């Protein structure tokens, strides 16, 4: 009996006869080989997506993804699962919109339900200044061909009636004057994105190697020729024609081992969830002014994202200072959630660059490629990060979408400052 690999209603019914005992494992946990055409460091969403598109779009057969821990255990498992493309500048709009469009077809593409829910991303305006800034923002999006609607207070209330609009005698502390919504934004299941890409990449022959930490690089005449690794406690070496880094907050640490300094600072970004409740929130709601945003998971937990700890950090844990601000903002904006208990809080280490835009492409070190700088918003960019890094690996040149997002921009001064649209103050 051959194991079933394709997920479909037909196979589900057929497999029921055997008590679902004939399903193949979703992906193979590989032992590393001695040599690969391309080694991708980092088994998060970006690394796995890169491997998948490198195999699928470019026909590269001999690929490994090396993950120091377990796949999807870093920032891919620590984000708040929001997808959107509501950025300000044309370069960013093209990049993030390509990502959202890939997300829209991803469940079918990967034959794996990533549970995309386009429930809308609503941004709140608390002042006249917010209204003006958001008019500019939404209009810029529409100029770039991306859906955005400006809303007045009544429309926001129809979307999210539980927000605090104040009462007749007691005005709200943070009045809601309006806002804007990208209706195609929403959330997707973060683990499913990692597992879906891992499964699809594995099916195309990609080796996914866990517990395999890259400890250094070997070079020949300045060109990267391989990586030193510690795999399940054993020291080893893997030869590679090309090496790509997709390691988010640890980009500086790994790049330094290859003699490369980056315009990146690592910070802890914190998130938390409440105990699960019946549906109370319809959209993803953001209050940039208060530094907090809310959505409800399919399990019913209210997922709350907050600001960065504003000092360099590699500690994968949050700080009570930010946590208190986030909880205070939640109680103020959604008073009916005030009695909920927090189940968990955690942090991921994010790679912030000065213009809040990514770096995707070749580096000054021949053979070494980079995908970093997504900062507080890497999850939404997983498909396009993988798509464009795979192109760079296959061709040696930056993908057309990623051309504005090269390391040179820090020399030329052509920065793409998306701090305002990044959603999280930094």
């Amino acid at each position, binding site marked *: 009996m051959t194991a079933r690999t394709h997920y479909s209603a037909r196979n589900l019914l057929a497999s029921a006869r055997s008590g679902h005992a004939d399903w193949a494992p979703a992906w193979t946990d590989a032992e590393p080989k001695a040599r690969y055409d391309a080694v991708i460091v980092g088994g998060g969403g970006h690394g796995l997506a890169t491997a998948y598109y490198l195999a699928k779009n470019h026909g590269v057969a001999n690929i490994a993804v090396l993950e*120091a*821990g377990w796949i999807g*255990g*870093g920032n891919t498992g620590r984000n708040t699962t929001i997808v959107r493309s509501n950025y300000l500048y044309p370069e960013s709009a093209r990049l993030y919109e390509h990502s959202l469009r890939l997300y829209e077809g991803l469940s079918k593409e990967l034959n794996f339900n990533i549970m995309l829910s386009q429930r809308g991303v609503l941004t709140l305006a608390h002042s006249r200044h917010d209204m003006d800034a958001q008019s500019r923002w939404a209009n810029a999006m529409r100029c770039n061909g991306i859906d955005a609607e400006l809303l007045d207070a009544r429309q926001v209330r129809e979307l999210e009636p539980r927000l605090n609009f104040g009462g007749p005698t007691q005005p709200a502390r943070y009045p809601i004057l309006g806002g804007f919504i990208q209706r195609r934004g929403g959330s997707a299941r973060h683990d499913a994105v990692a597992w879906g890409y891992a499964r699809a990449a594995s099916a195309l022959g990609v080796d996914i190697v866990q517990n395999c930490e890259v400890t250094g690089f070997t070079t020949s005449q300045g060109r990267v020729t391989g990586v030193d690794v510690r795999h399940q406690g054993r020291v080893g070496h893997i030869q590679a024609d090309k090496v790509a880094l997709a390691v988010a*907050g*640890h980009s*500086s*640490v790994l790049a*330094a081992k290859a003699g490369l*300094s*980056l*315009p*990146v*600072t*690592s910070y802890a970004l914190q998130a938390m969830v409440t105990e699960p409740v019946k549906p109370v929130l319809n959209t993803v709601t953001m209050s940039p002014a208060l530094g907090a945003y809310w959505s409800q998971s399919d399990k019913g937990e209210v997922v709350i994202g907050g600001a960065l700890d*504003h*000092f*360099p*950090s*590699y*500690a*994968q*844990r949050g*700080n*009570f*200072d930010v946590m208190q601000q986030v909880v205070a903002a939640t109680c103020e904006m959604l008073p009916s959630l005030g009695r909920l208990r927090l189940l968990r809080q955690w942090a991921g*280490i994010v790679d912030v*660059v*000065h213009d809040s835009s990514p770096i995707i492409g070749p580096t000054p070190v021949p053979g070494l490629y980079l995908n970093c700088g997504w900062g507080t918003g890497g999850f939404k960019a997983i498909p396009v990060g993988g798509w464009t890094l795979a192109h760079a690996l296959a061709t040696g040149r930056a993908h057309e979408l990623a051309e504005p997002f090269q390391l040179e921009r*820090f*020399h*030329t*001064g052509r920065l793409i400052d998306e701090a305002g649209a990044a959603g999280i103050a930094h």
Partner: protein
Amino acid sequence: MMQLQCPWCGDRPQREFDCGGTTGIARPPLDCDDETWSRYLFIRDNPKGPHAERWRHTFGCGQWFNVQRDTVTHRVTAVFGITERAPEPAPGPTADPATKGEPS
């Protein structure tokens, strides 16, 4: 919450401070080339471990000072004046295994 020792006010909660990033970065001559200037403006070591950095006691005395802090454990190993040089990092392991955080 992390506590920082302001040289003038003593131990205070981190909320009272603002971090000014890596300290001791010398500005190159204004007629330097673009690469040197971008290095000065943007490129940072961003170490995982001891980091010499500027802090300001914004909601206190308002003074700037320097701190040597581990970016994994947040342990502060030295506090020194804003014009002073960072002390040599202490030998031995940089990260405290007990608070090292999950594998990354």
